[in-house]
Every structure is written in structure tokens, then in C-alpha cells.
């Protein structure tokens, strides 16, 4: 890639902000390359992304926190500090975030209203926490109920990012018996693009990835049926788990302190929910790629899946299917096996025929005969 000095920084852009903070282009490009890889974009997009982000006006972001524990904010703002992710995060214009902002009371609410007015139709709304539909008094900010604040703020947003399992699917507040009548953002807002970034908490880089995508393309990344970005939630923890070979060999830990556990065998029997959990923990890992729960010796609890808290005991093996009854499953398995055998047999015969048709290659036969 061509070595330029720091990007031609226009005033008020991310590029200018980075230059002021002494972030050089090489470091920035490295970030963009990693981002493009994580978002499963072609490598050539790295420089496109770098140009786009550098030239982007600082994106106005309003962050609303409802029924939550602030774990999502902790994860996103602190865990990667002080890497480039954090800098970029600083360099968006975070106009309202009641945990992080200095202002309080009327001044804080004024900041939110001002940002909504100045960037009408263009700001990004980030929500963490679920919304109580029971008594509005269960959770309100500055006397405004969570429901009213969400509806009001969502109106002028370009897109909404529901951060954490609570905002995405209701999360722990929604767990049985759901005393507050908690619901997710998508249960309320129906007319805006919503990106769900579930996890309890979500991985910070997923958040920055979604932001980088939005800044580069002005659109939201490709989502799955549950509204999650496919590039991060496309595969199960299990499929990408480094302990997967043990599962395939039928080598399981039976207790947390047996010989098998010490050898790092599969935690399936100890209740690991990796096989039914779609998230990027096994690949991006946590704390700057240090580790993830399974690597630390504990099974996955499936925190990025809807209703994970009510999906059976955390330490009970996933030996039964979540839905579907035995007879249907039996028939399907038998049919699947039969198709598998047929396909294998057919493929073997194709290959055997090809082998039989093999004419020994001699030196003369490397060349075409002249016609």
C-alpha cells in the first residue's frame, strides 16, 4: 500500500482527530485491515474503509441506558483501552450517555435534545438495557419513562444499535417471571433499521466493527434472522472452539477438576452451550485476544442467545434438542443417514470410475497432438 503521511485531514473529520492524537496512518490502516477481515470484506476494502472513515464527519451518537447493569458500557469503553478502538470511539461525537457524560440533570437532557435537533435523521442511537412495559416507574430517567424516551429518540435516528442481550432480546430482566414486563428494542421500534449486538456483555470489537461499517458504507452490515451482524454471529462457538477436536473424539470432562478437565477436554457434559450459541468469542476472544470462557475452563452459558437465562440449568448438558420430538427427530435422522449413504456411495462410484478411466501419463502425453 502506498505510504502517505497522515490522511489529508479535513477539519471536523475523524482523520483530523486521529492526526491530533498522533495516530499514524500505518496504525490506522492496520486497524482497518483487521476490521475488514473481521467483517469478512475483501482485503482491498481495507484502504477504502480507511479513506471513508478518515473523511467521515464525526458521527453523532446518542446512547440510552435502560434496565441494564452497565456491564455493556464497561465492556465497550474499558476493556480495550487504550487502543485505537477506544480512540475511534472517543472520536465519534458521543452526545449523550448518562454514565459517561459530565453533565447531569437538565443540562444532560438538553444535550440529548440538542443532538437530536442538530442531527435529525442522521444520528446513531445505541441502546443498552431492556424496556419495562409494566409500571413506567420501574425505570425512568429525568422523569421520562424508558418507553417514552426510546420512542422519542428513535424517531430521528438513522439506525439503532441494540447493545447487549437485554436491549436485543430482553435479557435477564425478561427472565421468568419477568416482573417488570421487560421487552427488547425491536419489540417497540418497528420502522428503523435495528442491529442487535447481543452478549452479556457483547465483545467490544463487534461494536466497533458495526460502527466502522456504518461509517464506511453509510449502511448497516448484513444481518441474520435474529438481527445480528452475520460476520460476527455467523457461526457457533462450538464450530470455532479450540476444544472441538476433543468433542469429535468423544473426549469429555466429567467434573471441573478431573484429569480430563486438566487436559483441556470438551466441556459439553458440564453444560457448555457452545453448540447452540452464535457469537465470535472463540475467534476474537476477550481482553485483547487473551482468552474466552471455555479457554478459562468454564463452559459457554449462551449469553448472546435470546432467553438464555431460561434455557435450562447452566451446568446441565445440552443432550436434548431444544425443540422437536423424538419420533420426528428419529425419522429425520434416518432419512438424513440414508441420503448420506446414497451420496457417499454415488460419490465413491464417481471417483472409482475416474480412477478406472485413468490412462497412465507418459512424457509424450503431456503435449497435445498437432491437428
Amino acid at each position, binding site marked *: 500500500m502506498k505510504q502517505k503521511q497522515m490522511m489529508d485531514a479535513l477539519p471536523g473529520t475523524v482523520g483530523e482527530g486521529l492526526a491530533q492524537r498522533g495516530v499514524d496512518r500505518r496504525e490506522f490502516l492496520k486497524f482497518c485491515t483487521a476490521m475488514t*477481515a473481521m467483517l*469478512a470484506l*475483501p*482485503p*482491498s476494502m481495507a484502504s477504502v474503509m480507511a479513506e471513508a472513515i478518515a473523511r467521515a464527519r464525526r458521527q453523532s451518537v446518542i446512547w440510552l441506558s435502560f434496565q441494564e447493569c452497565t456491564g455493556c458500557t464497561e465492556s465497550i469503553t474499558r476493556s480495550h483501552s487504550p487502543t485505537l478502538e477506544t480512540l475511534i470511539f472517543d472520536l465519534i461525537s458521543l452526545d449523550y450517555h448518562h454514565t459517561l457524560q459530565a453533565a447531569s440533570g437538565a443540562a444532560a437532557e438538553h444535550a440529548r435534545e440538542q443532538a437530536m435537533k442538530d442531527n435529525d435523521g442522521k444520528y446513531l442511537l445505541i441502546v443498552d438495557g431492556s424496556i419495562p412495559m409494566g409500571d413506567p416507574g420501574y425505570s425512568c430517567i429525568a422523569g421520562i419513562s424508558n418507553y417514552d424516551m426510546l420512542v422519542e429518540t428513535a424517531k430521528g435516528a438513522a439506525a439503532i444499535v441494540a447493545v447487549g442481550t437485554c436491549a436485543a432480546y430482553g435479557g435477564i430482566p425478561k427472565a421468568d417471571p419477568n416482573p417488570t414486563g421487560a421487552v427488547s428494542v425491536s419489540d417497540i421500534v418497528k420502522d428503523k433499521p435495528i442491529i442487535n449486538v447481543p452478549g452479556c456483555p457483547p465483545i467490544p470489537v463487534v461494536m466497533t466493527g458495526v460502527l466502522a461499517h456504518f461509517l464506511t458504507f453509510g449502511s448497516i452490515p448484513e444481518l441474520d434472522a435474529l438481527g445480528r451482524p452475520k460476520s460476527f454471529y455467523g457461526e457457533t462457538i462450538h464450530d470455532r472452539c479450540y476444544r472441538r477436536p476433543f468433542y469429535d473424539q468423544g473426549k469429555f470432562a466429567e467434573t471441573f477438576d478431573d484429569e480430563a478437565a486438566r487436559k483441556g477436554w470438551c466441556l459439553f457434559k458440564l453444560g457448555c452451550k457452545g453448540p447452540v450459541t452464535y457469537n465470535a468469542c472463540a*475467534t476474537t476472544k476477550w481482553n485483547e485476544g487473551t482468552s474466552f470462557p471455555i479457554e478459562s475452563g468454564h463452559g459457554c452459558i449462551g449469553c448472546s442467545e435470546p432467553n438464555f437465562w431460561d434455557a435450562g440449568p447452566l451446568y446441565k448438558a445440552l443432550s436434548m434438542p431444544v425443540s422437536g420430538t423424538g419420533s420426528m427427530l428419529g425419522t429425520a435422522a434416518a432419512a438424513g443417514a440414508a441420503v448420506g449413504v446414497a*451420496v457417499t456411495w454415488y*460419490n465413491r462410484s*464417481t*471417483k472409482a*470410475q*475416474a*480412477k478406472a*478411466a*485413468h*490412462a*497412465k*501419463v*507418459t*512424457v*509424450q*502425453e*503431456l*503435449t*497435445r*497432438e498437432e491437428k
Partner: protein
Amino acid sequence: MSATLEKGLNAFKEVIDTPIASYFSSCVHCGLCAEACLFYNETGDAKYTPIHKLEPLRRVWKQEYTLLGRLGKLLGLAKPVTDAELTEWEPLVYDSCTMCGRCSMVCPVGNDITYMIRKMREGMSASGHAPEDMKGATKRAVEIGSPMGIKWPAVQAQIKHVQAETGIEVPVDVQGADYLVLMSSMEIINFPEYLSAISRIFKQAGVSWTLAPDAFEATNSGIQIGASDLAREIVSRIVVAAERLKVKCVISPECGHAFTAIRWEGPNLMGKPFGFEVKHILEVLDELRLAGKIKTRGKDKRPLTYHDPCQITRRGGVVEQPRHLLGEIAEDFREMPDAGVMNWCCGGGGGVSANSRAEPLRLEAFKVKKRQIESTGVHTLITACANCRIVMEEGLEHYHMKVEVLGLTELLAEYLVEGE
């Protein structure tokens, strides 16, 4: 008899095995292999993305071995692989792939793309889509005994020179010797220092070794062009000689693909385990060093760096040995960036150096090696592959760089304590 498209397509069907089927079905199209490839990296041309080089083979897999693909073929929806397409792909499969294996290292789902290229070449050569120069080299290897057309008398002449120079007798056809030493044509023609160095080191270490007139050539053009039938014929010469002389171990010389051919592909081609070991010369030298059988004195004062030959380091696993050996004799050894298993290819492996059509591209790809060397600031480059050595000498010449290239074995021999 002639090469035909049908033979090529049949070979594609024949080489698609369980690994290849699972590789194609698990490719996530992330494109990470592109930036691992020196040809993509130096040209920026997307057609050099490694997985893209396999497109015709992928379509044959889809059309012949997957349910949907077969259905599509039945309904006439599939695009068949044609001669015109294979002609277009020939430069991608041969000129712009050195089978260096860097792409296989970075693939996040673990696809061995290099393995697939090797297999794809079977179909390319059977359909007549191999480069002319490689056909010529293969013809000479099969008919004359060496890709450069060298016969035993040329080796005999070299033996005479070495004996006159060192005063050490070079053993030939010794029954029951421990080691059978092979050479590459390039060493016979361009680098006679190798045989001289081996004679001196082995004399000091008291190693029993021999050359064999019917199996002196280690290289295997059949592997590079991708014709297993021919590769088997070439490797069988070595197996026959090793069994005839009852040696314990065959030593692959300072040549990259020869090691792959004998050490890894050999037993598979022959369809049976070898009754002898195969080692690279650096492995043998490092074993001798560990056993205290190599005595050196003094150290080379020049700043040096080491180029890892792909087939020996990345694909062959010989990583630490050259570092240990250099540690004995180099005062100022400097690693180049990306040294070791992720080192960049010289640009001429996998038959590319034998293919004159690929020369402009190869010189373009050499720029990465140029940058690596420049960043170390040395003027002496050590390696352990005669092909890398020739390719790099040409590249250095082309870019007017004053850097000398030496083989590690011969450098080691310079510091031997002799005659005491």
C-alpha cells in the same frame, strides 16, 4: 497418444478426495489468502488470490460431487470447464504459484490451498495445459535422468575435481553405507562447492556415506508439473538405489521441492512406507553438531541473514536447525522480517524458475524479498536451496543489489577445523 481435455477432467475427478471436498465446502470467501500470496501482494491483481486459482477444480467438485451441483448439471444450468478456460488458468496455476504454502498457513478454516494446487496440476498436465518449459524439463528428467539433462559422467567429472581439491575420496556405490547422498542438477552444474563441503564435513564427522550412479538426482519435475505417474517413476529410482545399497538414510540436498518429493510425497507415490529414513542435509548436520562431531573454529565477521526455503521450512518443518548451525559460525546473524515459517518465497519455487514465460512476474514478486534483505542491511545471504539461490541471484542482479548468496553447508565447511 496425446493430452486431452477429457483426460484432464477425469484427473480432476480423480484427485478430488475427502480433504479437497471439505476444503471447498468450508471456504468462507474471506480473502485472507490473497494477502499471504506474494504474487497478489506485489501486483495487487485480484486474479492472483490463491483460492481463485482453483476455480475450475472447484466447479468440477461442485458438479460431480455435490447434490445441488449435480442437479444443476442435470438441468443444464452448470457451466462446464472448457479448454479455453484451462488455457486462461494455466498462468494462474503454474506461473503465479510457487506452492510456497503461505496461503495455507493463514487460512482461518485450515484449508491447505497448496495441496489443492498440487492436485489441480494433475488435471492441467493431463489436459496439455502445463507450460512448455516444464514439459521439456520433465521430459529430460524422465528420459535423460535430470531436468537439466545431466548424466552420471558429469557427476564423475565433478567427483574428480573435488577429490583433487580436497584429497578426500568420494565414495560411490558403497554397499551398507549409512547415508545415500543425493544432489540437485543445479548443484552439479552451478554449485560444486556442495559436494566438496559434504566430503569434508562427513570426513571429519566420520560418517559413512555414498553416492549412487543410478540415483544421484534428487529433483522431481513430475511433482512440479503435477504428473504423479512420472513423479513416481522418478522417485522410484531413489527408492531402488537406497534398497539396493541397503542404506539407513537418504539425504535430500539443498533443494526445496526435492525434500517434498522424497520425504512427504515419496511414500504416498510408492504406496508403501520406506525402509529407510529421509532427512534434509540441514537436519543431518544439526544432528552431527549436537553429537559434537562437527568442530569449527572462528566465526564469520560479515553480517548475514538467512532465507528460509519454503519447502524446507514452512512445508518441511526444518526451522531451528539452520539457526543452530549459523549460531556456531556467524558473528552477526540477523533475522529478516517474517523469518521462519512465514518467510516469503524467493518467487521461483514450484517450477516457476523453470518456466521462462513467468520471468517478468517472478522478478516483480522478488520485490518483497528485496525489501526483506534491505531491511537487514546485510550483503551476505545464506540459504539451503540451490533453486532459491539461483532465483535470488537473478533477482539481485536485476535490481542491481550487491548481495552475495551462499549455501549453508558450504559456509559451514569453511569453518571446519581440519588436519589436526
